[in-house]
């Protein structure tokens, strides 16, 4: 067979697999251990005093280590939200759903999660929500321990009080 008659090679199979043993780091490990106990832990920046949650051991604005640990409430206020109508094969939530930034009481940066437990057209900035945890015997060092956030029924927080956190 001449070269002209051969079909070009269009594909080869080269399976590749690398295994990694992840280490969360000091700050995130403490946070995840807290989650396994049903508590949310943040860290305060010694310079700008902002409380970060989840903490990564540093303040990205000030470039200093954060060491002071702060207990943060599992209740908070919706800072912004989006109604998601696009399916993702990696996400096991029925469409449509609301993804939210929740400013937990005692934190200065919002926490990313989803909201369930109310009609989507009721989700709004300023709405008070609380974490819905998994059953106590299923708590583990993973954010899957928080199923979602749901409304508390408390009065809304006025927009002006949230302005600086947007």
């Amino acid at each position, binding site marked *: 067979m001449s070269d002209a008659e051969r079909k070009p090679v269009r594909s080869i199979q080269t399976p590749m697999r690398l295994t*990694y*043993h*992840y*280490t969360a780091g*000091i700050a995130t490990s403490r946070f995840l251990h807290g989650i396994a106990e049903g508590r949310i832990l943040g860290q305060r920046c010694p310079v700008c005093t902002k409380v970060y949650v989840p903490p990564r051991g540093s*303040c*990205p604005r*000030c*470039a200093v*280590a954060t060491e002071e640990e702060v207990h943060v409430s599992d209740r908070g206020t919706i800072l912004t939200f989006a109604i998601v109508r696009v399916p993702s094969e990696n996400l096991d939530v029925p469409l449509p759903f609301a993804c939210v930034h929740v400013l937990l009481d005692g934190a200065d940066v919002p926490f990313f999660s989803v909201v369930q437990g109310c009609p989507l057209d009721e989700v709004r900035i300023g709405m008070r929500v609380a974490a819905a945890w998994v059953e106590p015997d299923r708590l583990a060092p993973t954010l899957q321990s928080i199923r979602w956030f749901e409304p508390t029924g408390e009065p809304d927080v006025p927009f002006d009080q949230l302005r600086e956190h947007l």
Partner: protein
Amino acid sequence: MREVAIVSFAQSRHARRDLRNEVEILLPVVQEAVQRSGVERPFDFTCSGSTDFLQGQPFAFVLALDAAGAWPPIAESHVEMDGAWALYEAWVKIQTGQAETALVYSFGKSSPGDLPEVLSRQLDPYVVAPLWPDSVSLAALQARAWLEKSGRSERDLAAVAARSRRDAKGNPHATVAGDFAIDDLLDAPYLASPLRKHDCAPISDGAAALVLVAGDRARQVCERPAWIRGIDHRADLHALGARDLTRSASTRIAGEKAGVARRPVDVAELHAPFTHQEYILREALGLAEDTQINPSGGALAANPMMVAGLIRIGEAARRIHDGSARRTVAHATSGPCLQQNLVCVLEGE
């Protein structure tokens, strides 16, 4: 050519396995380098070197920016290379006149993965990488060819390991240090003949950072600035079979361009992750017998991937900062079997 100096350098203690995240490792190192530099943030330019393959965490270099002081937004760049090449980019940036000060850092966390396997992924993806040749086996091919050609012995290789580990006793950042008898080292089993464990750099997690400043401002902030008098980098062919593995043409040319031979060299910090490579590099750079090689212990004492080359430059600068050397040479390598090489000549005044 614009005068550029290294005015400060800092590095972590390079552990076999560091349980901190990359920012937790990097932040104190960057803080130390910045503090010692006498330069106030923000830097005109920031450049880093790392690769996500090591820890298997995508965009780790973006997370690492938390350690750099990236707010308000800074001018920064990243190379998927050893931090020595990040220094090169920063040096070029200063040459263009777009910056007068630069922060350079790199980090590497190899412990989450199987490093020799991970490094096999940098090879030709169609005909070489599918065979999974690990980094130690490839270095052993080179070592065997070099031993045969040079007439040297495995005892000569062990001598490099023993000297490096002994010198590393004075290096608080080292992963491996101590007194080892050459005969004892030679009793150890082969990892990949002719290489034994002591012939291979340890696997280390770590970080390093340094500050570059141009011209008279460097003289103002630093008592003895380490001036970059020459810097060049070159790459050999990527196909291992197409190269003469027993010599390093890219190092030789980079050394010539950087002006290594113009004057005597007090100290050379060579990035040789395998013992035989130190001999190849010495020859390529034409270093004299009285040049002290790797007083830090070199990569054989601590080898955080993507950092060990920048550390060579930092160690070479440190000798000028502390007044113990007047002219030093630093070398960094990247890729299998010394594929790509950078040479930097530093001088005091």
